[in-house]
């Protein structure tokens, strides 16, 4: 299992046409009162089936924008996203999203929240009992079968996030998109959730794109870490291959020299190469100047 993922992963110089998920030269401009703001510039990434990708970078660098473009919630200004050579231009259950703040419907129980997704995705493909089994199976996978019939306000934050993951998994997505899934959780719960996610990943071998702020989380979970430069015009700065063998154990890894090397590389990228501190002063004029040039370009074109 781990061997196959490794083999496919090592071919970084892969043929872009054949990639499972192809994020191709994506630019993203947002209109603002001062002209358009270029959030992303030439983001180009090819992802293989079964690969676990982490997007890491400082806040405001456009990680979520990348994820929303893959999800189809945003449309790229230039370039685009191809999933199995088909263009992505609207949201869909084959690209399930686990939202940062769980986004469970508060009036439905855990079971009903997953049911809504299952009813929609497998409306005709499954019988009633098959659906019930499938919903329960997914809730068991995230260890939430004991609180199936509780509402979101009756369970803890970590449990809510588990149900959110169960809902996404129940759609049997081609790609699982996770937007800082554990960002709002305390450290212990987060570690626990990461372990569960690794177990699930071992079983299902999903293609995952996960946004994170947490360096340890990125190294622990990913096959590749995509480090993004600071915005505006954020793009992919460096890509780090994580060749640590599966299954990974956080305690054993703490002393592993390779793990620590990867960790320090991410840290170096974030806190030396892409320091955010000096940007805070310079940011505003930079944005304005850029907006000005865009406006000027527009005028020239006109």
């Amino acid at each position, binding site marked *: 299992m781990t061997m196959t993922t490794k083999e496919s992963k090592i071919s970084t110089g892969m043929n872009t046409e054949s990639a499972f998920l192809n994020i191709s030269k994506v630019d993203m401009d947002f209109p603002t009162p001062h002209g358009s703001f270029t959030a992303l510039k030439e983001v180009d990434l090819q992802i293989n089936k079964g690969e676990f990708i982490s997007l890491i970078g400082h806040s405001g660098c456009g990680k979520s924008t990348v994820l929303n473009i893959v*999800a*189809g919630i945003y449309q790229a200004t230039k370039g685009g996203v191809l999933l199995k050579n088909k263009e992505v231009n609207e949201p869909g259950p084959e690209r399930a999203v686990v939202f940062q703040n769980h*986004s469970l419907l508060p009036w439905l129980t855990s079971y009903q929240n997953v049911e809504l997704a299952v009813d929609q995705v497998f409306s005709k493909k499954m019988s009633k009992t098959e659906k019930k089994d499938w919903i329960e199976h997914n809730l068991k996978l995230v260890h939430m079968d004991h609180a199936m019939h509780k509402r979101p306000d009756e369970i803890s934050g970590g449990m809510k996030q588990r149900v959110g993951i169960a809902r996404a998994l129940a759609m049997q997505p081609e790609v699982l998109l996770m937007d800082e899934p554990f960002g709002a959780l305390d450290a212990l719960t987060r570690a626990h959730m990461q372990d569960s996610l690794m177990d699930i990943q071992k079983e299902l071998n999903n293609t995952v794109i996960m946004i994170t702020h947490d360096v340890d989380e990125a190294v622990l979970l990913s096959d590749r870490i995509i480090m993004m430069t600071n915005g505006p015009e954020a793009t992919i700065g460096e890509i780090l291959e994580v060749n640590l063998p599966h299954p990974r154990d956080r305690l054993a890894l703490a002393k592993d020299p390779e793990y620590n090397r990867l960790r320090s590389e991410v840290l170096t990228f974030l806190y030396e190469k892409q320091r955010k501190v000096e940007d805070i002063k310079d940011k505003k004029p930079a944005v304005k100047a850029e907006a000005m040039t865009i406006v000027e370009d527009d005028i020239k074109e006109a």
Partner: protein
Amino acid sequence: MSLTAATINRLSVNEKMMKALKSVFNKITNTLLLPVVGIAIFLALWSITAQSIHTSLGEFPGPNAVVKQFSALYDEHTTEREKATAFYERQEVRNAKKLEKNPNYVVKIRAYTGKETFVDQILTSLVTVTCGFLLAAIIAIPLGIWMGLSVKLNSALNPIVQIFKPVSPLAWLPLVTMLVSAVYISDDPMVSKSFLTSLITVSLCSLWPMVINTSIGVSSIDSDLLNVSKVLRLPTFTHIKKIVLPASIPMIFTGMRLSFGVAWMVLIAAEMLAQNPGLGKFVWDEFQNGSSESLARIMAAVVVIGFIGFLLDRIMLLLQRRVSWDKSSANV
């Protein structure tokens, strides 16, 4: 040592009991005692001031006079009912006799045409307000949902809603009266024109709070929930049923409660002028009657109107608690 520990223990138990007692006492004071005190002071002030106000119809009614009128109104109701049953009995006997004489006789049953009692008028008012409110809800809630979903429709209709919202029922009434007379022409009318006029006026005035609250509720749904719906590609109808309606139920109910309050207030005015046989007409008739008891009877009607308004609001609240998932939104 053990002795002191036991004493401390006993002391703390005593303290706990004292605290529990105190909280129970506080609860009783706040929910029972203070309201009673408030009402008592109000009644005292009322009876004192009433005595010093002299109108052309005699002394302004104090609490005593009003209570007396309540029992008088109830007595009138029972005698009127007795008269009605007596009338139907007489009619039956008469019809039976006629049938005996002539087997081919076609039995005619005539309805009793005595005047409406106070209780009848309360019932008429309740029926009218409920019908008017329901008509408004049937129009307002779907319209509000649609406006909440579509920014364009909202921009188009918002000025109209804002302009019509503050219009008094008294301004609508002449227009509605003429409209009903012009359009509702039937030889065998199912409902009277005055009922229809009051109903439509009530609907026209109670429409707007529901439209506004529903559209705000729908347009302020958490964008994450909308994204869930997008990712699932829910069809429009399922989207409304599964996401939009439950999410905006608290706001819809707030609008409905506001509207029901408005409807009840408007109804009294509408009935007064449209002569729909309800509480409004009762007040108007008593005013026109101008007997020495009229003011006390009107005051009795005022108390009943207030009480029913309060009850209607409570019923809506209970309904909201039943329907809404968010119990905290259904507080008083």
